[in-house]
């Protein structure tokens, strides 16, 4: 179950607070997955008590966009901590879908990759199994089929340290790179933080989703949770 709350001493009108929270959560807590299961209790609350002496912020206030952006970034930090603590997780994975036709489909694709047990076990085993990533993209339940053009898609692993080359291309314009540098792939996949970059090439929207690998420990923890 995901629970969380954010409190602030700013004065924010409740309607503005609700829209701010909803937008922030859509780009943070609603973009994480550990195991693909949705709880009956997931809740994120926010309270603004107005202890700071400044004008009340509503949706028409000049500060609204700034505060919303700061709350979003803040919520992303919290959401990422949840993924880092995923049961049995040894790796933190950012799935970055770029140049999508629309945000919704970018998110659907990012979520499909993030929830694929076969992708997650491959990442745990440090196996550069790009076929599983492409497979997950292929079955994603897109709202608009034009979001995915098999001849335009690019998929890469991106190194999260300072090592070069930073990007290891796995699929270029729909063509699998069959001579992938396996040694470099192993180096990248041995890092505790990973990034999977998917460039759809069908638009300008993007979505980041955060997930983790799936290990034996997950089964150990959940095999007898209730008893």
């Amino acid at each position, binding site marked *: *179950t*995901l*629970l*969380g*709350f*954010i*409190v*602030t*001493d700013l004065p924010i009108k*409740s*309607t503005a*607070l*609700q829209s701010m*929270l*909803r937008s922030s*959560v859509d780009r943070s*807590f*609603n973009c994480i997955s*550990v*195991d693909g299961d*949705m*709880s*009956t*209790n997931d*809740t994120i*609350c*926010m*309270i*603004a*008590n*107005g*202890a*700071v*002496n*400044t004008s009340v912020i509503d949706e028409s206030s*000049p*500060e609204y966009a700034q*505060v919303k952006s*700061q*709350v979003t970034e*803040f919520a992303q*930090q*919290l959401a990422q901590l*949840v993924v*880092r*603590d*995923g*049961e049995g997780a040894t*790796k933190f994975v950012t799935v970055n879908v770029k140049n999508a036709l629309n945000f919704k489909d970018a998110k659907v694709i990012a979520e499909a990759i993030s929830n694929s047990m076969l992708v997650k076990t491959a*990442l*745990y*085993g440090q196996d550069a199994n790009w076929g599983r990533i492409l497979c997950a993209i292929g079955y994603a339940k897109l709202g608009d089929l034009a979001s995915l053009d098999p001849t335009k898609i690019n998929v890469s692993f991106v190194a999260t340290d300072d090592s070069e080359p930073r990007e290891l291309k796995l699929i270029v314009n729909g063509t699998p790179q069959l001579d992938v540098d396996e040694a470099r792939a192993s180096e990248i996949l*041995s890092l*505790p933080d990973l990034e999977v970059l998917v460039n759809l090439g069908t638009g300008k929207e993007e979505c980041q989703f955060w997930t983790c*690998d799936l*290990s*034996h420990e*997950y089964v150990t923890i959940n095999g007898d*949770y*209730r008893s």
Partner: protein
Amino acid sequence: QRAAATVDKYALYVPKSGVFPKGFKVASTATGVKKNGNLDLGIILNTNKSRPSSAAAVFTTNKFKAAPVVLSKSVLDKTDGEGVDAIIVNSGCANSVTGEVGLKDAQTIVGEVNDFLGKGDATLTMSTGVIGQRLQMDKISKGIKQMFQKDSFGSDFDSWLGLAKSINTTDTFPKLVTSKFSLPNGTEYTLTGIAKGAGMICPNMA
């Protein structure tokens, strides 16, 4: 396994100090609901009286919503998010798929906090833990009473960290983030956030 790296996540991700927003106090306690005796009940209170508070929330879209979700949503609907001054969270038992009795239990908890605050519809509630079991109300009610009567509330770092720990279940570290920001007019404000979660995580809240 090659991938199994030993990382001290607590040392990496738990802060050792923090700045906290004005006008909030928090408390936590171990009621005994958690079998290991760890902290399992926390309350956050708004103590600022200069103007009414605003509250907002997003909830699971799972069709089987737990009692605290149903109740908290009804409080926000009733108040339009105005004047909510407390959140009470328990861990160890999710009070989920517990039917009418679960809802009554959640109402009792919220009512007890409201009584201490001296006003109605001022408290939201959350629960996490095992699904399909009733809350141990005797332990939780006793914990609420003790926290208020002994005035266990504080605004220092340890109090906030205790609150973060009290909502954990299978988490290996408490999740506490706090930051100070400035508005264009120079006014400084603070955001503090606490979250929990390690499994059953793929939320889609609305």
